């Protein structure tokens, strides 16, 4: 049996680990903060918004522990250049369509590893003379478990198709390879995951299931029946496109010409009403038209008049290529 005062870490080593953790946590909180604006999905925005502050407090606690270990306060330090390259890769997916990659990097790769590293450090830190470090690591473990559970819920919600799930897995594998090459956040290798991860309680104030519920769109928008009929007819004619049928709905002075070129340029096979907003007595209606390789957004402002609802403004967006490429590397 080891002596109660036997220790694994020197003071300097312990300080270096604090700086290594702080580097990963600080970069993550800045990335999450920056991504909120770049991420379309409300559930993912709320997830990131909640965790930025948790991570800032952890980074602050690591930074505050440093002077107690004969080091400068609030300093971050990567274990090696490959850790920097790994964090660069985690930060890389910035396009609106890459929310899954953003979340995978943080919640499936980095955080499970941090959880394992904190746990590994905790069980090796001496209980007699390292309680300040141990208490800090216990707090980190609690936060990381909660974050991983919430991130897993949101990822489960966002990876709605096998293709997305496959994309997520491919990106996860790529980042795991980079992280393994770096030797993890400390450069000392990848410790095994602790066994009790699944039993962690989830605080209700941070309940990702509620974020998903709040994100869910209405089953049906409230609208007058005559407008509903008009929108069904107009939407059906958009994807075909049936120019004559569309023209019937235009108010005097509104031209179909700018839209005609876009609608006929791409093979669009489906249409979906995606937004319905009020503007006084008028309504703003957005459709998403999609084909195998491209999609386009159509926005129309509908106004009531003596002849019923008519399109008072029509705007067709740019043709977007579907299937965004994976981030580089």
């Amino acid at each position, binding site marked *: 049996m080891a002596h109660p005062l036997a220790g694994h870490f020197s003071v300097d080593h312990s300080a270096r680990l604090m700086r290594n953790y702080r580097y990963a946590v600080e970069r993550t909180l*800045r990335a999450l903060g*920056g991504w909120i604006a*770049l991420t*379309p999905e409300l559930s993912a925005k*709320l997830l990131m918004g909640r965790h930025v502050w948790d*991570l800032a407090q952890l980074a602050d606690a690591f*930074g505050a522990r440093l002077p107690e270990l004969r080091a400068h306060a609030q300093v971050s330090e990567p274990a090696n250049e490959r850790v920097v390259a790994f964090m660069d890769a985690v930060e890389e997916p910035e396009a609106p369509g890459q929310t899954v990659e953003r979340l995978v990097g943080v919640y499936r790769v980095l955080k499970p590893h941090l959880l394992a590293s904190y746990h590994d450090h905790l069980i090796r830190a001496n209980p007699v003379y390292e309680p300040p470090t141990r208490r800090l690591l216990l707090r980190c473990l609690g936060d990381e478990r909660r974050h991983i559970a919430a991130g897993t819920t949101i990822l489960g919600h966002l990876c709605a198709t096998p293709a997305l799930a496959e994309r997520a897995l491919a990106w996860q594998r790529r980042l795991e390879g980079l992280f393994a090459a770096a030797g993890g956040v400390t450069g000392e290798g990848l410790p095994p995951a602790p066994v009790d991860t699944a039993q962690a309680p989830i605080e209700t104030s941070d309940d990702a299931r509620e974020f998903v519920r709040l994100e869910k769109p209405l089953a049906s928008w409230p609208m007058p029946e005559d407008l509903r009929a008009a929108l069904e007819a107009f939407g059906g004619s958009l994807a075909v496109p049936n120019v004559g049928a569309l023209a019937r709905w235009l108010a005097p002075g509104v031209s179909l010409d700018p839209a005609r070129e876009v609608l006929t340029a791409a093979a669009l096979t489906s249409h979906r009403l995606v937004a319905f907003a009020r503007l006084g007595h008028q309504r703003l209606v957005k459709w998403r038209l999609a084909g195998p390789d491209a999609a386009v957004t159509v926005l129309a402002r509908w106004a009531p008049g003596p002849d019923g609802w008519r399109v008072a403004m029509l705007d067709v967006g740019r043709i977007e290529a579907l299937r965004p490429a994976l981030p580089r590397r």
Partner: protein
Amino acid sequence: MERPIAYDKLAREDRWVRMRAREVAELKIAQGFPPFADLSSPDSIRERVHGILVGEIQAMEGAGRTVCDFPDAPWEFTMDMARQVWDESRHVEIYLRLLEHLGGYPGEFPETTILWRCACAEDAAARVAGVNRGLEGLACDVFNQLVHIARKIGDPILERAVEFVLADEITHVRMGSKWLTKLTEGDPDRRRKAIDFQENIDERFNLGGVRRDGDHEAVSISIATDVRRMAGFTEEEIERLVKTTQRSQVY
């Protein structure tokens, strides 16, 4: 990461319709509606709450960008901004639930990005002056009035929730005042530019006379002088704001 990002990078789900504030106002006026939702009917209260929800989303995004865009700012600055991200994310959740409570839905009214544009200043001092003092000051006015209206119409859900949000906003204004001073210490030119930026925002958000000093029920947005004092605005600043509302142009 790209730092800072362009205005048009703000990402949204398809359910949102984005329009310029001026266009929304013009189209509403043309139909005989006030340009900015007053609080005279359940519909207009819901529209106001929807507008606040959009503002809270943009405030969360703006504070998040500030955490990201200024890695060389003092660590305590990052801490305050990270705290603000958390607060704003809770505010988004609160207003999503309030919208549900009022029978509305996200995307029910068009989104304007006028607040987000203010959150894109390249200098950290200008950003906290504009966002934390200009926009959060506006939030104090709007929320204080909403609490009053909720009390009057007997909606304790709305009243209590917004009162807590208002308490957070007062804290954010204080943070703004603190960091405007600290970040511009010894640099009067930077301070002047930041304050000019805030004053420009104040002027824009007077909304052509919509925000005014007056009774909650008599004006569309009443300036919350007591709350502003509590948040640390000086008498001189409050007086200046009241004066500018008497000469503002529409948008």
